[in-house]
């Protein structure tokens, strides 16, 4: 099936005007599949880390949200062991007017503001609530170990 105009336009703009700290490059053999990297936001436990993600645009995109998953191991209450992300705009609050760039920005913001009250990784969220400082320290350590630039 031919690639819809929307995906072509989005890809072009991502290349021409990249978002700071974010990159998204489509696979040559499958233009709906993107290799993504997100830099950890400043002053977060993820600062200094570069996180790899995969992003896939399903057939009915943009009517359904893109499928996104962290590939780099990350210690975060809203991201589970398999890299799945708990973020409202990726699920029920998706809107067809949202785009790859806006969604990736939301994910970057999620790194800067973890939300342990709406957890996906239950054990991490538990730790985050019990001893936030220790949890943040673990997140830092994981970032150093797994998210080397």
């Amino acid at each position, binding site marked *: *099936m031919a690639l*819809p*105009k*929307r995906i072509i*336009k*989005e890809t072009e703009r991502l290349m021409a*005007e990249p*978002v*700071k700290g974010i990159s998204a490059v489509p696979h040559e053999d499958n233009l709906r599949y993107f290799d993504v990297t997100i830099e950890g936001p400043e002053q977060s436990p993820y600062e200094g880390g570069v996180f790899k993600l995969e992003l896939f645009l399903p057939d*009915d995109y*943009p*009517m359904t949200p893109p499928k996104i998953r962290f590939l780099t191991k990350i210690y975060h209450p809203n991201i589970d062991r398999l890299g799945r992300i708990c973020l409202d705009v990726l699920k029920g609050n998706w*809107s*067809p*007017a*949202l785009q790859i760039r806006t969604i990736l920005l939301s994910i970057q913001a999620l790194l800067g503001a973890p939300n342990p009250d709406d957890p996906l990784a239950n054990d991490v969220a538990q730790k985050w609530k019990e001893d936030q400082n220790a949890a943040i320290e673990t997140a830092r350590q994981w970032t150093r170990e797994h998210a080397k630039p």
Partner: protein
Amino acid sequence: MKFGHIFKERLKSEGFPPEWVESAISYSQLKKCINRLTNELSELGLDPQTLRQLLKKVEDFNAANKDDDKPLEYLLAGQAGLGEQQGGTAPFHPMLLVYVNETTGELDSAHLNEETRHKLQLLAIDTGLSDLRVVELPDEEPDCLPSRTVNNSAGGLRRRPGYRTVEVPLTSDIEFFSTLAAELVGLEELQEREQRRMRGEIERLGKQIARQTDPDRRANKKLLAIWRQIFQIYVESDIFFGTTESDHSARDSEAAVERFEKFASTIASHHLVDQMKREENLRALTAFMDINRNLLQGLRFGEINRIAMTKILKKFDKQTALGVKKTFPQRIEYPDFSQHLARAVCAEVNTQILSHVPRIDDYTCAMCMDIQWRPVRLRCQHVFCIRCLIVMQTNKQHFCPLCREKTVFDANAENLDLEMASFLKKWFPDEVKLKQRHNQLMAGKDEYGEVYQQKCCVM
């Protein structure tokens, strides 16, 4: 190479109109002024070294907030009238002030060498007698304000009890600043004239292009697409300013020239010029390019004048140590020739020229990013193409993608925006046709499945 020489060469070689060159900062004349001033100062024993030492002392005192011990200061007074008095009478009155102890006649500084001190004392007596340029300030009542300095509201001079303020008579510095100030005013006037002239040109060209792209004239059909493509490339070239999220700064002349060249070559590589058949179209395009070139030249002219001003002030300081490079620009607004003009003209080009040819980017559906054909206006006033809304309704997605109001749910044929439809048909005939075909194809696929093709296939 010396800057004075480079400046002269650039003014000569870059093809500026003679009127501009005349208004440029007269660097060499100002330089001569500085030389004369240096002579005047050294005759008083105030060579740069001595002055630097003295002024350094002033700074130290300022830092320590004990300015009543100041031996001398250099003031740039009278700047206020600059805006109003454009007649040329120099509003600038720079003053080098020396404070002399009235009772002893001693200069208020231990750091001067004998000779200089002697000369300045003579000067104080001299000018005190002739009363030529002495600023006499009445003594303070020592009881009321013991050892405090107050600002004299009239001239901004500080009165100090027990000291007489003597102004060192200098003429070349007055000449220097009045020349420079007058030239800056002249540059500003030149800029205003240029802006008016260009505005006229842009307006004329705008009308021409409006006529040539009027979609109601059959002959214009092809031309509209050509002009649109040219303007699209023009806008995307960001010649004078960045327009993206991360970069919206003004460009310097070098970057702007480079981008303009790129714009010109892109147009050439798309063979857009070749497609313009009629003479009047080519003339309009040439006029458009000329306006841009004109602007680029203004940008360059402003830049070298700015450099000239900075350099001459730097030279002034280096040779006299009077430290005006920091204070002078605060006194006077440097007419930002380049930026002002560029902003004004770009805005004008946008409203007068580019707006005659609507851009497709302003009429795309936020979902498919294609032209919003047919346009459906939801209750919340957001417009999308009919195809995307049908898909949403089929999926039972009821909320507006932009404002999340439940307006997709109850949209029906009455929401078709007929006015917008005829506008799009008029200005984007090709895009509308393509999208229409695409919509039909997709509708067919909905009904008959993936194998559906537009053309009727006879097996």
